[in-house]
């Protein structure tokens, strides 16, 4: 019954799509019926083409995001702990953050080259801002009293950092990482279209346009949707459960 409740809207939208597709208002090349999209999805998956595209997209996402996560958390902690770092970096971060990341795309492609290097650097750069800002806020939000309590109990700097500051800032850091990953994901697909990489879901969709393969484009979009949902449910929920919820920082 619950399943039916969730499935019903998709059935209705699917039926509407099917009616429009079969009515012949649009040429079937441009508006393929669902069974054709499903068949293409199955065919491309079986041939290993779709998984290959997806794997390369995910690899770029992981590489770019890893840069952003590492640099972002380090910079954020530095800004939270040191006055001088904060005074220097905060104005730069606040100027850079509101500029849409894609606006940098052609420049980065020019500087770092088309293909993997340019797109990975750009994705990392774009995802950096939410990570830095949230880590900084998190470190600043660690309660003063916890720090003092730990210090009076004889915690040295390393222990203070490892056992008080890091867990204290963790919910914010995770929020930052989550926002960063979401931004990286939104931008990566577009970057793949612009950067002329030979593989990747963005390229698959963009390249399919040349040959009017609307079914392949929609199959690619379906794959992007599936991966997006999987990222949210399989990556972030478990991380949150194992860290901040277990440390009792937020309610389960």
């Amino acid at each position, binding site marked *: 019954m619950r399943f039916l409740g969730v499935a019903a809207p998709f059935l209705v939208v699917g039926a509407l799509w099917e009616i429009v597709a079969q009515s012949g208002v649009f040429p079937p090349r441009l508006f393929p019926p669902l069974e054709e999209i499903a068949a293409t999805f199955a065919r491309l998956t079986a041939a290993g083409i779709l998984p290959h595209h997806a794997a390369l997209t995910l690899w770029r996402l992981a590489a770019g995001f890893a840069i952003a996560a590492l640099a972002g958390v380090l910079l954020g902690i530095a800004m939270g702990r040191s006055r001088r770092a904060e*005074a220097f*970096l905060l104005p730069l971060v606040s100027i850079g953050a509101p500029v849409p990341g894609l606006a940098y795309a052609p420049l980065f492609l020019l500087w770092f080259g088309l293909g993997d290097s340019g797109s990975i650097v750009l994705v990392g750069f774009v995802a950096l801002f939410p990570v830095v800002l949230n880590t900084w806020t998190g470190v600043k939000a660690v309660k003063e009293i916890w720090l003092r309590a730990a210090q009076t109990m004889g915690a040295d700097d390393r222990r203070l950092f490892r056992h008080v500051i890091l867990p204290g800032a963790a919910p914010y850091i995770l929020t930052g990482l989550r926002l960063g990953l979401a931004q990286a994901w939104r931008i990566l697909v577009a970057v793949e279209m612009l950067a002329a990489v030979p593989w990747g879901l963005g390229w698959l*969709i963009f390249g399919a346009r040349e040959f009017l393969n609307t079914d392949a484009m929609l199959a690619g979009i379906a794959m992007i949707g599936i991966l997006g949902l999987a990222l949210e449910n399989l990556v972030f929920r478990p991380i949150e459960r194992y860290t901040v919820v277990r440390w009792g920082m937020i309610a389960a």
Partner: protein
Amino acid sequence: MKALLSILVAVILYELLARSGWFAAALVPTLPTIARTLWGMLGDGSMERHALNTLARVFAGLAAAALTGLVLGFLMARYRAVERFFSPLVSALMPIPSLAWAPVFILWFGLGNVATVLIVFYAATFPMLINTWTGARAVNTLWLRAARSMGARGPALFWKVVVPGASPFIITGLRLAFQRAWIAVVGAEMLAASAFGLGWVIFDAKEFLNADVMLSSLVVIGAIGLAFERLVFGSLERATVLRWGMVRAGRT
């Protein structure tokens, strides 16, 4: 004052890099070159024309998204059936980046304004919808009961209690929607615009290695984004939620 200092340091570092001769002058232009290009483009009116085209596209998409998000969000909060029908669709479509649809929209509607505005619409609708929906559900039930017992019904209850009560969420939604729309329009113009628009300029300049034009447009994009964030949304907040006493002043 300190902010100016750190910006100055960053600017000097860039200038040194540009003058060091390690990179081609066409790729890393010096600041005077960028300033001259920007001045020239502002002088002959071409930059204004690009900016106006981009703004028109953003507002068309944002207006449609705000309307859709508000109406659907309130309906979803009010009627169980509407919520049950749309919420699975929303969670399935939301993780797909709006720019992934770019090639499909181009194929269906051709290069140009329709495809660009639709991409902006897709990007901006979800934050607006989610925030309106959450905001309308988060209205204090005590207020609703109090208003009802004082005889408020239907439209009065909606306009005098639900809308002001949900307004902090709605304003946040609008803010997020603008940020998303601003990113989306730049990407959409790179992929789908046939002439004019800040994103199009940047992408077009890449063909001719005009890094100075790219950086000039980047400055304009950043300035417009910042102006909207600070001036438009700041005063919108003051005129609505602050005046109605929904959030306390003195945050910013």
